[in-house]
């Protein structure tokens, strides 16, 4: 049966189980969009018309992170494709499985500065896990199959497929979706090396102050049960990175909290004082390690990761184990089952030490008077939404770190945030994508006034598609994190951070056909949030907060973990001279 490239493409997507596409049509991809309206296709694939391609890409990320299903984006050539790059790079750094289809000018016009032409495959080579340029119509089924496989397997990541107009308009014999797939240059190692696992168990057997340092890899591998079992047997305390939040039960007594630049004091001190660090699906980000020359000097390190390039990249580890985190933890649990050790009794001192740090340096903030403390606002979001088990997304900045620290209900696949790239504007479209995957769940985007303004045009997409995302803006009228750095490290010289001139977010919501609320006083926060979360459809809650509240604890940039500054600590002048 001869079909056009567009027909083959959309059939291939259906075969891959794609039910939702985020995108915007344009010149060279019109033919594909034309086929998309065929009733046979329209009933199988829901297209969500976004208002900016960056938003479409973040939506696909949110869809993936929340559902575990690869997110799909479709855009046109040139500007459409270029607008996806922020989202694609974000997906690369946070290992988000998305596939982006970009239109391209006909092959005969490529390289001739044609209208809306950009070298998209060249431009995205370094920000995708892999990309394809489809040169023949008959290659489309294989490319689609490989694209989705590469995106979701191994260390997940973004894949881009560039589709020249003549390739999607041309005809080819369609022989159905390929059943088999063998990419000879791509064979991710999933099983851990038995000898290395033995070595890891040996280190665990003798450790006195061990610590699990888990990351986003646990979530991608869905190794929650295996991690729970490991901790249940060994009693080893757990810290998680920003990307790993949700991988371990936050109410478990062995859960310490988030680690890193704005992690809890006691979690970070545990990193400094442990004698064995078990890194699981985490990648020793500079936001976690602090000053590298001071990091991990006191301990042995085991590192489990699916991506060999993550291992010994910046930090030399003693026992590297390349493999799928879930499989490796399964094997590790089996091996540990045979170890004779009184785990539960052995770490009393270690837990006592951690408890002491925690008692001395709990998460805290100053007394609240007239102005709403942002920390209180986030605590209240948790309090009034907890029982609905919401999906929580964030933008990037102070509000993100407060949400990471204080939102106490992180669940697997229910925490969406931009860690590696730190993309302001990520939260709202990502929440929209998660809402598309789970239409009846409560999806909350805790955002900043700066972050929200970067991608808020998709509010109309939410209204149009009945995606009832609840946006809670922690509004301090500043690019707050940048202001905090200027206050601490640049002598309070505030340069280009004031966002006091801003839209009226309540009226903005109304202009879009959504509902807006505002809280200005502490006592208003709870009732307004309750009302907002009970309101159908998209909602914006503008919480006007104390403007110059800072986010602590904080490991100063360039400092070692032990230089961590807690709430109320004096800022050590000497530490920052190098920064000025």
């Amino acid at each position, binding site marked *: 049966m001869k079909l056009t490239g567009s027909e083959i493409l959309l059939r291939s997507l259906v075969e891959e189980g794609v039910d939702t596409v985020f995108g915007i049509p344009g010149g060279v991809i019109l033919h594909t969009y034309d086929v998309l309206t065929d009733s046979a296709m329209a009933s199988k694939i829901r297209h969500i018309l976004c208002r900016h391609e960056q938003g479409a890409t973040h939506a696909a990320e949110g869809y993936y992170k929340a559902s575990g299903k690869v997110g799909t984006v479709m855009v046109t050539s040139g500007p459409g494709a270029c607008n996806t790059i922020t989202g694609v790079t974000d997906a690369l750094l946070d290992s988000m499985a998305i596939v982006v289809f970009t239109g391209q000018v006909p092959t005969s016009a490529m390289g001739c500065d044609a209208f809306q032409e950009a070298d998209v495959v060249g431009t995205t080579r370094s920000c995708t896990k892999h990309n394809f340029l489809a040169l023949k119509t008959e290659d489309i089924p294989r490319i689609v199959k490989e694209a989705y496989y590469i995106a979701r397997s191994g260390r997940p990541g973004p894949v881009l497929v560039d589709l020249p107009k003549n390739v999607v308009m041309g005809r080819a014999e369609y022989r159905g979706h390929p059943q088999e797939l063998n990419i000879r*240059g791509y*064979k991710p190692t999933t099983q851990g090396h038995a000898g290395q696992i033995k070595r890891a168990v040996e280190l665990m057997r003798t450790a006195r102050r061990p610590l699990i340092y888990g990351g986003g890899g646990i979530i991608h591998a869905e190794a929650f049960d295996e991690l729970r079992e490991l901790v249940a047997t060994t009693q080893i305390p757990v810290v998680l990175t920003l990307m790993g939040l949700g991988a371990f039960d936050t109410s478990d007594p062995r859960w310490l909290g988030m680690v890193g630049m704005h992690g809890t004091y006691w979690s970070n001190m545990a990193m400094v004082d442990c004698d064995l660090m078990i890194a699981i699906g985490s990648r020793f980000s500079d936001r976690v390690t602090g000053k590298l020359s001071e990091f991990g000097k006191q301990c042995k390190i085991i590192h489990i990761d699916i991506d*060999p390039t993550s291992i010994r990249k910046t930090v030399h580890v003693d026992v*590297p184990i390349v493999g799928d985190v879930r499989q490796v933890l399964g094997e590790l649990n089996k091996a540990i089952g045979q170890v004779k050790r009184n785990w539960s009794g052995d770490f009393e001192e270690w837990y006592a030490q951690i408890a002491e740090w925690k008692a001395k340096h709990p998460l805290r903030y100053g007394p609240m008077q007239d102005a709403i403390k942002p920390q209180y606002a986030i605590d209240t979001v948790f309090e009034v939404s907890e029982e609905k088990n919401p999906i929580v997304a964030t933008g990037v900045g102070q509000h993100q770190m407060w949400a990471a620290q204080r939102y106490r209900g992180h669940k697997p696949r229910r925490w969406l945030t931009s860690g590696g790239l730190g993309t302001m504007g990520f939260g709202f479209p990502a929440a929209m994508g998660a809402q598309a995957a789970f239409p009846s769940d409560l999806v909350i985007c805790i955002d900043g006034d700066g972050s929200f303004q970067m991608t808020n045009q998709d509010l109309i997409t939410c209204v149009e598609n009945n995606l009832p995302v609840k946006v809670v803006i922690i509004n301090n009228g500043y690019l707050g994190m940048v202001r905090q750095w200027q206050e601490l490290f640049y002598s309070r010289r505030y340069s280009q951070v004031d966002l006091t001139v801003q839209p009226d977010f309540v009226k903005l919501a109304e202009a879009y056909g959504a509902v807006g609320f505002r809280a200005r006083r502490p006592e208003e926060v709870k009732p307004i949030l309750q009302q907002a979360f009970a309101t159908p459809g998209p909602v914006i809650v503008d919480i006007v907060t104390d403007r110059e509240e800072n986010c602590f604890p904080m490991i100063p940039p360039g400092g070692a973990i032990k230089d961590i500054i807690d709430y109320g600590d004096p800022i050590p002048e000497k530490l920052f001279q190098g920064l000025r």
Partner: protein
Amino acid sequence: MSERTRSAPKEAKARHIITLLVENHAGVLARVAALIAAKGYNIDSLTVGETMDPSISRMTLVVRGDDSVVEQAVKQLNRLIDVIRVTDLTGEEFVERELILLKVKAKPEAKAEILRIADIFRAKVVDVAPLSYMLELTGAEDKLNAFIELLKPYGIQEFARTGMTVMTRGSKVLSKQAEEVWRGSETKKVVGLE
């Protein structure tokens, strides 16, 4: 315990010879070159050619860098989907060859001496003009460098070097190992890890 970070970059960086088997299609060379460039390394030489299997190309890459950084680069090359096999031959036994075409001034009084040098190096005269010779020489990098040095006094007009290609000694066959990878009897090997 020793420091966990990379040692400070040394003055003299080790020369690494990396061979890759890659998919023979457009864009692969760009991926490999871009990855090395992103590390801030200049590529000393790079050769590409088809293998016995026309769907596979073989690349030989010579770079200078710290061992740990090159190890990371090799791992990242391995991560490229179009790369089937990567081997860092540093420390292995191998034969390296490069070809040079060199045009040297040949004044009448110098002709005999140039031909003698060519003879000692087993170079061939491939073109003769009234006042110049074009010489062809194959060999390892050092040999080619020595050849150039000796001919400099006579006035080298231009030369073109192909870049290095290498093959390991003994019965080890790179493409055989690669075949095992894609047949599934072996996973893509990661150099530098147990």
